[in-house]
């Protein structure tokens, strides 16, 4: 048990966590008008499901992998509505659009502070309770649980740096 705990904490790298926590808080405070409470990050089991609505952003360049922002359905609807400034339900075309753009801003905002230059893909959105999203098997998945007054979501980070940090990218110098 002790070894497992040790391994878990060793693989949860604050240099990855902190940029995402800051970015989540900034995106929701600035563009949704919602304060986010972040709980203790943990490692995710390989095939554990996410929440009901997930937006996936791929990373390429000096960093590879993916980041998933996954919401409880009701939280997703209410956060998307607050972001868009109009009522949005899960059956509307604006719903995946709003959820995708929130994930884009979270991933993009964190990316600057990862200390290297990576590119992100446009978001894909998956809707359906209990879905499982496959990811790179050699990269641990760190889950950052987040609470808002309108429900829960989680940021699942499964990325690895494949090139050493650059010194001139602005974010992490």
């Amino acid at each position, binding site marked *: 048990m002790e070894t497992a705990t040790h391994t878990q904490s060793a693989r949860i790298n604050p240099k990855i966590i902190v940029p995402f926590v800051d970015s989540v808080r900034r995106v929701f405070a600035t563009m949704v008008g919602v304060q986010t409470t972040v709980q203790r990050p943990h490692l995710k089991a390989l095939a554990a499901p996410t929440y009901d609505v997930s937006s996936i952003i791929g990373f390429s360049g000096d960093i590879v992998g993916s980041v998933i922002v996954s919401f409880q359905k009701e939280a997703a609807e209410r956060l*998307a509505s607050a972001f868009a400034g109009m009522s949005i339900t899960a059956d509307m075309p604006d719903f995946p659009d709003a959820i995708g753009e929130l994930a884009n801003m979270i991933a993009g905002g964190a990316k600057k502070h990862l200390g290297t230059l990576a590119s992100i893909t446009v978001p894909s959105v998956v809707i359906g309770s209990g879905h499982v999203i496959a990811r790179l098997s050699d990269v641990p998945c760190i889950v950052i649980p987040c609470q808002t007054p309108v429900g829960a979501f989680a940021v699942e980070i499964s990325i690895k740096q494949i090139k050493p940090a650059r010194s001139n990218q602005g974010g992490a110098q």
Partner: protein
Amino acid sequence: MRVLLVDDSCTMRNIQKRILNALGNMQFAEAGDGVEALKILFSTPEAFDLVLIDWNMPNMDGHSLVQRIREKDKTTPLIMCTTEAEKARVIDAIKAGVNNYVIKPFTPEMLIERVTTTLSKLKAAA
């Protein structure tokens, strides 16, 4: 004022519209990617007073779009509005020919300020 909004998120374009409407008498055109934006820009006889351009979009990204616009058009004011925030990205965008840069997430005040200072700087220089 005639503004072209280029962003693959229609939610983002709606937010930008709502904020920029505060400037009064606005006319908007919209594109979801660079290819659509080029079509609108080069088929519309009347020039736009401003183009707001996202970076991460399908088909043609905002950086390529700025390069393509500047091959033919050196004057239309272009503002990048993106989550891409690295110094290297901002430098690339300026090299490609943007007049200003807004980083997402932004407040309404930030967007208005960036748009008005860009337009008044260009007016003063003209």
